[in-house]
Each structure stands twice: as C-alpha cells, then as structure tokens.
C-alpha cells in the first residue's frame, strides 16, 4: 500500500550474524526474549503496522502457514512498533495463533538493532529473519514495504537448517564415535 519513501536501509543484518538480544512484551504482563527462544529456530517477521491492509494479509498468510513452520520445528513471531493492547486487539480480530511483540518503548529499538527501522516513517521495515537454534541469523530478507513477501523463503530457509543439521544433529553425529572409543575423559584435555 503506502510505498511512499522507498529509501531502504543498507543495514539489514545478514545471515551469519548473531541475532541481537531483545526482550519485548507480547502481552501486558508477558515478555519474550532471545535467550528464551534458544534451542529452537524461529521466524521473526517485522511489519510496519497492525491494521494496514498488506500487514493484515501478511500476518494472515503466516497464520495459515503456521502448521508448516511448526512442522519444521520452528516458532513464528511477529514484531511491530504497535503497543500490546493494539496487538491484542489485532491478534483477536485476525484470529492469529502466534505472538506479536511490541517494539514500543524505546520505540523501534529492536528493529534498529536488526537494521530494519525506518527513521522517517517511525515504523519498521517489512523484513523477515530466520534465526537458528543457537541464536544466529540463518536467513534475512528485506521486502518492499508495500509488498507481502510470502512465506516460501522462510520455509526454504527452515528446511535448509534441517538439511544441514543444527547443533543437535552435529552433537548426535559426534556422540557415537566417542562412545565407541569409551575414552571420553581422554578426549578432554
């Protein structure tokens, strides 16, 4: 919709960067932090505003794709600068089944850390991140603000996380040889 200022920030955090720390309210009395999310991949969808038409469509789409995201072992999280009460009303109206975080005070601080805040507009970019189970950004994408980016990129990124194996798989792979040798203590120096 409102394309307006097409100036995009150069600074969206790329794959391979550790996800910046954050703790944001998901409801008036609950917060979600990066530390709590460790151990499972998650999708972080920044969107400009709760009630604008494209955002509604984008969140409705991710809501419908949620079973597939969860099947890939991941969580889904939305973020905008709207406050918790606004998020609550929006989530209820749209029947959303995943948390919306309020990057509300200081406004846009977490979006800035991820490199996706639009200073002149006072809203976040429309951007997607897939963060792996160890808290590192595995994939990121900056969409034109008026365009719903769809969910195929997110699903591909989550699949390739599975394919290459997260730290869990790596740990499983290294475990059997150590057990066979039966000399775990020796391996440790």
């Amino acid at each position: 919709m409102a394309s307006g200022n097409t100036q995009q920030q150069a600074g969206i955090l790329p794959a391979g960067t550790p996800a910046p720390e954050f703790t944001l309210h998901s409801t008036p009395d609950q917060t979600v932090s990066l530390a709590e999310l460790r151990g499972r991949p998650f999708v972080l969808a920044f969107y400009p505003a709760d009630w604008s038409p494209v955002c509604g469509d984008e969140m409705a789409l991710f809501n419908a794709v949620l079973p597939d995201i969860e099947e890939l072992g991941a969580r889904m999280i939305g973020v905008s600068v709207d406050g918790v009460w606004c998020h609550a009303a929006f989530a209820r109206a749209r029947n959303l089944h995943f948390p919306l975080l309020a990057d509300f005070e200081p406004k846009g601080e977490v979006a800035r850390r991820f490199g996706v805040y639009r200073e002149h507009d006072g809203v976040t970019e429309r951007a997607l991140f897939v963060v792996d189970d160890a808290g590192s950004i595995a994939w990121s994408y900056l969409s034109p603000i008026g365009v719903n980016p769809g969910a195929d990129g997110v699903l591909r990124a989550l699949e390739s996380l599975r394919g290459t194996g997260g730290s869990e798989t790596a740990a499983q792979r290294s475990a059997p040889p150590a057990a066979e040798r039966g000399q775990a203590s020796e391996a440790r120096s």
Partner: protein
Amino acid sequence: MSDGILVPPVDDGRDHVQGPASAPVTLVEYGDYQCPYCGTAYPIVKELQRSLGDQLRFVYRNFPLRDAHPYAEHAAEAAESADAQGSFWEMHDALFENQEQLDDRSLIGFATELGLDAEQVARDLDDGTWAGRVREDFRSGVRSGVNGTPTFFINGVRYDEGWNDPQRFLQALRATAGAA
C-alpha cells in the same frame, strides 16, 4: 520474494482444468471462495475464457486463508467433494456466485440444487475427507510464492501486473498465446 514459478506444474490428472490440454496458454488461479477479491476476479476470468476460447486452459487451485475467512476451508472442501461426483466447476461457480452465504447449510444446499448427493457432501465436510487435498493445494501455493488471493500464473509464471485490469490481463494472455 519467490521466483514466482508454479510448483508443481499443472497436472491434468490431478488439477481442476477447463479448456484443452493443447491450449497455448494455461492460466492458474490460487483462490479462496470467501475472498471478496476472488469474487471480483471470477467474472473477469469467465470473460477471459470467452475471449480466448480454445486458446486458454484454466486451472483452479485452493488457497483458503482459514483464520481470516472462516467459511473458506469448508467451501473448498465442498467443491472437492462435488468434484468426486463429477461437478467441480458447477460447485466452484455456485460458491463464487453466492459468496455471502457459505456456511455448511448453504454448501449442502448448493449440492442439492446441483443434483448431487448432498448427504455425501455433508459427510465429507464432517469427516474432513478433502482437507488433505485442499492443504496440498495451499502448500503448493505457498511454495510458488502465492502471498494473497487471487494469485494468477500464466504458463507457470506469476502474473503481477494486476488482474483487476481486464484489458491488460487479456493482452498478457494473448501475448503469451502468440509467443507459444
């Protein structure tokens, strides 16, 4: 975001198809029976079919946004159930022509009006017989970069120039037909 390429390609054995397999242009729609934009697109597609005749093969795939449109899922399943009785397109048309009344009772009513075994349609809705089929369509749409409804693909490539400009849409299809 996506490459905008239809995955999987049209399969005459599985997809709902109108028009000859030999047509130079295949138009695929991902739609939601409760979506008002799809309702607007419905007569536009009909007009395109009239204009292009045997030049056009039209395919419909399901993309219900269930939480946004509470009746869309069952409407899609009712069309699949009608398909099992050989009447997919009759039900597809009835749904788009009656978008304001898509509750289960109405769906079963359409089946009766179309001369189908309405009790079978009711059982299919209760049992979710066609839910998996609808979900397969939905997933293929997500993979193909469908980000809302309706989304159209012309010979497997997403058409982003605006379906709501019928003249332009027709020109795009004609150009593809000419090039094929």
